């Protein structure tokens, strides 16, 4: 650890958080259908789209109608993406000559991309055609992100409403978020990425004969256009197997910085936009502060752990300043650490180093950030509503302590809202621990592990955490492209997205219907250091504690094994 590393970590976090305000203010305008400087171009396009969809943009939806539209859209997305992957051999732009994917892989991948998880069971270089990358995966990188942000907008409107009904219109939100926010930023970033070295070509590969005479087939994809939305939408699914560790997806420290910033910026911006729409700017600032505290803590833990001596290197008296197994030279420990916090905190799941080869506590921290519920700052949109759920539980706990009916942002929080919030929160441990427990006793499931012992347990626990949290990163030694893993991970992804979102929308509907109250002397302030500390505590206890026994058997026991090995020399 050195001063340069710490300045890289602090700089990256500061730039990202600072960007939340300009982006959030713009996002609030888009949510509220106010004028933007893109109107001359996009208003007419918007109108044409609503006509084609057959929707009335001025018609509001209650929570149930909003949820049904979101589910219908996700179902249609699933079907189209599934068909593209299954029949890519019949579709154009398949210069690789790949066959259609297997049914279980198409199922897993389609769910993965419509739930904003972007878990990848396959090696893209050997599986996915150029057309599937573009029309299939790039498309749903946009749309699953837009759907997530749409739900955040709906939740914001619920808190803004005074005895209201409507949460907005899903089709309008989906369209405006795609056109006004995601597409323009993606265009700018994609062009910057090409300028900085990422390929952007329809050619499948280049053939090289090296200086020593060896032949090399270099796989290519239209990389930059997908990389931009992959990070911007907290998707994280790579064009290449090595994801953002691949030099084509992330050629330099500068692209690395840009990817880090954009993979968290919109998640923070959703919180700022929420503050503007619901007229609770101070409270939104507190939520941003909570998120940033966790990101800084996680970055620090990973930076520390990855600069501890690696036992295999120590044994041969090699340098042990940085655990470089599974890391790239152009990044090093600090870049890797802050990236790891960003990608696991934000349900992005893109990696610039291989988490499987981290020191035990570094990998454990990555897994813990996912298990905390993907709200730090969480996926685009999903981070905001995840955090609001936790804040409701925090004021409920606070209310129990002082014996008053809790309020949050001018809304009375009663049994109904807390039940929906708990329903959402509880689906995560149920899926993560349930599926992990089943896999741990099924000999056929265990065959997929690369490592044995505690590290093997970490591999499977990480996989279900990642799928349920809609993160998508992996302890990549796991060979998950077999029917059992494809199916169970697919179900975990579905539960993590939809079994979470539906109670959240129901909660939003119930909150919208309540009168908006003025704070009184007895109201617990929800913006100061006291509330920030309470919320941090609730997130760790509610979101983290239930995983502690499993963590103890995986990363923590492995940590002590490492200490043991090091002491033996």
């Amino acid at each position, binding site marked *: 650890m050195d001063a340069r590393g710490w300045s890289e970590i602090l700089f990256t976090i500061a730039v990202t958080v600072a960007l939340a305000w300009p982006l959030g203010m713009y996002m609030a305008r888009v949510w509220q259908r106010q004028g933007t400087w893109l109107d001359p171009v996009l208003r007419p396009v918007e109108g044409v789209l609503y006509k084609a969809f057959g929707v009335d943009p001025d018609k509001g939806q209650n929570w149930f109608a909003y949820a049904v539209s979101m589910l219908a859209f996700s179902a249609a997305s699933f079907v189209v993406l599934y068909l593209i992957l299954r029949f890519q051999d019949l579709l154009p732009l398949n210069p690789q000559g790949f066959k259609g994917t297997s049914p279980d892989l198409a199922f897993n991948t389609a769910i993965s991309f419509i739930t904003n998880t972007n878990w990848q069971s396959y090696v893209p270089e050997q599986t996915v055609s150029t057309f599937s990358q573009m029309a299939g995966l790039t498309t749903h990188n946009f749309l699953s992100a837009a759907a997530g942000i749409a739900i955040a907008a709906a939740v914001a409107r619920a808190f803004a409403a005074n005895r209201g009904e409507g949460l907005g219109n899903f089709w309008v939100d989906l369209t405006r978020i795609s056109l006004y926010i995601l597409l323009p930023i993606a265009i700018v970033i*994609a062009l910057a990425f090409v300028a900085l070295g990422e390929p952007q070509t329809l050619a499948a590969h280049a053939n090289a004969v090296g200086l020593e005479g060896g032949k090399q087939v270099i796989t290519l994809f239209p990389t930059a256009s997908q990389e931009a939305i992959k990070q911007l939408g907290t998707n994280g699914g790579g064009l290449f*197997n090595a994801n953002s560790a691949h030099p084509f997806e992330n050629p330099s420290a500068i692209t690395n910085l840009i990817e880090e910033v954009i993979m968290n910026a919109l998640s923070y911006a959703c919180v700022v936009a929420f503050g503007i729409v619901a007229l609770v700017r101070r409270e939104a600032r507190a939520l941003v502060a909570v998120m940033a505290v966790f990101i800084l803590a996680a970055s620090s833990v990973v930076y520390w752990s990855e600069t501890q001596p690696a036992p295999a290197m120590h044994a041969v008296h090699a340098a042990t300043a940085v655990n470089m197994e599974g890391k790239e030279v152009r990044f090093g420990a600090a*870049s890797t650490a802050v990236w790891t916090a960003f990608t696991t905190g934000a349900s992005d799941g893109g990696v610039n180093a291989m988490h499987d080869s981290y020191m035990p506590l570094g990998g454990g921290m990555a897994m813990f950030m996912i298990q905390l519920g993907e709200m730090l700052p969480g996926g685009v949109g999903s981070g905001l509503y995840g955090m609001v759920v936790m804040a409701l539980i925090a004021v409920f706990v606070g209310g129990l302590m002082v014996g008053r009916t809790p309020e949050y942002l001018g809304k009375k929080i009663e049994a109904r809202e807390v039940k929906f919030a708990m329903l959402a929160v509880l689906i995560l441990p149920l899926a993560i621990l349930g599926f992990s427990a089943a896999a741990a006793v099924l000999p056929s499931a265990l065959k997929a592990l690369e490592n044995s012992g505690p590290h093997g347990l970490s591999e499977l626990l990480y996989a279900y955490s990642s799928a349920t949290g809609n993160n998508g990163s992996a302890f990549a030694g796991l060979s998950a492209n077999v029917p059992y893993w494809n199916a169970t991970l697919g179900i975990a992804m579905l539960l993590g997205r939809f079994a979470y979102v539906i109670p959240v929308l129901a909660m939003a509907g119930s909150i919208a219907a309540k009168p908006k109250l003025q704070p009184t002397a007895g109201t617990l302030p929800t913006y100061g250091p006291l509330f920030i500390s309470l919320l941090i505590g609730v997130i760790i206890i509610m979101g983290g504690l239930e995983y502690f026994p499993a963590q103890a058997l995986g990363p923590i026991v492995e940590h002590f094994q490492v200490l043991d090995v090091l002491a033996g020399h």
Partner: protein
Amino acid sequence: MLSDLRPALVSTVIFTALLGILYPLAITGVAKVAFPYQAEGSLVRDGAGKVVGSALIAQPFAKDEYLHPRPSAAGANGYDPTASGGSNYGPLNPDLAKRIKGDAASLRASTGHQEIPDDAITTSASGLDPDISPAYARLQVDRIAKARGVTPEQVRRIIEDQVQPPALGFLGQPHVNVLMTNRALDMAAPKSTPKNS
């Protein structure tokens, strides 16, 4: 509920055309004109225009006169751009310990130094890491100089020229691009025995 069927299907199809086809093709078109070198994969060519590799992708170098890259876990034999990836060995995996032990011994034999930098015998995340640390590059100076029949000072100067500092002074790590350095070596200090071409 049925009223959602039409917008669901129509929006998926239209957005696929707009975001999945039009957008990437437009970026591809602009990139082809504005940044053709990067867009095609940063391909490096020799004097005759033949592609010798990509500046961003590691390739195996084993001869004494060349700078050697990090070990690679991409594909069965390493350095395979159609199968990028790391070893995914956990820190206590016995296979990792075995590999590192073997690589440490052969590196010490080839350089004649006891010192081993962090990156020299660890596999990268992508298996295609085009760079090595300056420390690992400097370790190879004597071997390269001997094989090329030039002074270590000459080789050292070429390598130091290739060291890229952290971006903006503090982002990432200093690194040396192996392929570009080897091209520079071939140009500035050609191997005394002529190569078959």
